[in-house]
């Protein structure tokens, strides 16, 4: 665990993710003010809102992909708005798993190498058995050595999920993971995400405008 982590103390079992008076503005007039969030460890939350409501902005702020301008974001007791650039990079690698609408797999690499990028970039041990384990868990164990272009859309999405959970992150952030999928696949992906998060005891936050997910996740934050 990083030094920053220890300094701030793992005091708060009270909130895995806690935001206070968070706001972001892209231009002078368009300021988005976010309501304060408190999400407990292992909870599953839905951020629901129309396009342009700031869902992606909030997910990126929570994930440290975007620097906040005002307010604090506390993740596992660490205020990530106070972290230096490189400390934030490390923190991201070790605590987060991201899933985006498009899978963003690196097409030059095989499935296995795509997955191994996660521990490599996070500075963790690269374990091929863990890769096989996660792929099997997602039902695509046979694709371990396949090239990315050989995958179907659904398989690619599952590889992206596998990559996000490989490092056993404490927080899984998903941005519109289902909006490009039909009903059947939407069901499968959301079920998969929820069960995987549960198995890994990870906090899951899904940002979406997809109303189909409303029935599945009860904790709702409307933007």
């Amino acid at each position: 665990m990083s030094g920053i982590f220890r300094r701030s103390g793992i005091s708060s079992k009270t909130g895995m993710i806690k935001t206070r008076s968070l706001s972001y503005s892209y231009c002078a007039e368009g300021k988005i003010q976010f309501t304060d969030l408190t999400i407990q460890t292992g909870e599953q939350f839905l951020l629901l809102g129309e396009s342009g409501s700031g869902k992606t902005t909030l997910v990126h702020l929570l994930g440290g992909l975007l620097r906040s301008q005002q307010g604090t974001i506390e993740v596992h007791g660490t205020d990530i708005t106070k972290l230096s650039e490189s400390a934030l990079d490390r923190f991201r690698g070790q605590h987060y798993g991201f899933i985006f609408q498009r899978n963003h797999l690196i097409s030059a690499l095989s499935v296995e190498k795509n997955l191994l990028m996660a521990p490599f970039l996070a500075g963790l041990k690269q374990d091929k058995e863990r890769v096989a384990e996660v792929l099997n868990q997602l039902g695509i164990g046979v694709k371990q050595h396949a090239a990315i272009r050989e995958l179907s859309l659904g398989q690619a999405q599952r590889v992206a999920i596998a990559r996000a959970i490989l490092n056993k992150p404490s927080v899984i952030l998903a941005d519109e993971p289902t909006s490009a999928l039909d009903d059947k696949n939407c069901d499968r992906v959301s079920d998969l995400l929820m069960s995987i998060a549960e198995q890994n005891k990870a906090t899951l936050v899904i940002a979406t405008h997809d109303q189909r997910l409303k029935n599945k996740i009860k904790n709702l934050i409307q933007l």
Partner: protein
Amino acid sequence: MNLLSLVVSYLKAKPLNTLLNIVLLALGIAVITILLLFSNQLKEKISDNTKGIDLVVGAKGSPLQLILCNIFHIDFPTGNIKLYEADRLAKHRLVKSAIPLALGDSYQNFRIIGTNRQYMELYKAELASGDWWNADMEVVVGDNAAKLLQLKEGDKFESSHGLTKEGSAHEAHPFLVKGILKKTSSVIDNLIFTNIFSIWSVHDEHDGEKHTADSMSNPSRLVPSVESSDSTKEITSLLIKYRNPIAALQLPRYINSQTSMQAASPSFEAARLFSILGVGVEAMTGFAYVIIFISALSIFIALYNSLKERQYDLAIMRSMGASKSKLFMTTLMEGTTLTFLGSIIGLALGHGVLYLFTALVEESQKTGISAMIFYVEEVYLLVGSIVLGIICSLIPAFQAYRTDIHKVLAGN
């Protein structure tokens, strides 16, 4: 996974682009390598071959021709000089030593040189087998000439007139091989040696009226078997070593103005020859640098373009914990991997082409140029091309460094 394997995967993902970039650079590096090997070795050969010879004296004509003919044995003689005139010069107080040369015959394109043993000492020639020539019509053969002509001790051959294959054969006067020389990597490897009298007797219709030394009143200093006053005898040239530095100032001027002969300095003419060749070498080198520049440009464009396609890769790598500087390094490594491979292949190609050239072209073997010599400049080429790789990937690397992950990942 590591950065290198990521970079290699990226390069493999676009095999044609990668091939083009590597081939372009390799071509430029190969041309430079060949020129480097060629001109360096040529310079070494020239200085090796002119060592111990301060001045070449021959018939009037082109001084460069005189040097090319009498030292490097590639051009034709400028004409003959009278032996008695050469003799007089050999006795000059500023001359330490003078070696006579008589050219004019050849065997299968290999020149037969009439001279004395001093010439062999000049090049530190040693016998590999057999013995030195003693009597007339006996020869000693240089290493490479013996190999290519398949001559060995005791063989006989008939020379032909002139320095090319087409000359008419001197059937009445066969030469006898007495010895074979060790390899010296100098010009004498490709020559056949005999005494001067043999060259004369091949050409004289009424064969040698040879005298024994004691029957002569005043034997020639250069060719002791004839009278120094014999006005019929001619030689091709005289290789002179100065007695002291003053000779360098006085002797050439004296010869050129006071005698019917011409003096040429090997070092001066070699330098002049090199400056003439230098124009060609420079033009080729310039051409090679243009190719290298184009390859650098091509690598830059390839990296720059691929950044657009890879912005999602870069952003997702950042989201997985990669620092900005890691992305910077990745792009830099991609450029340098290309130039490193290009220059390694280029160096190998340069040596390879020269090796094929020396193996296939018989004339090139006479020059003694080898493809298996390595110069420190090649290390500079290698280092230089890695620096080149850094330079042409610097801007793309900086772009990668500045990737705005939020914008890329948010803007579908």
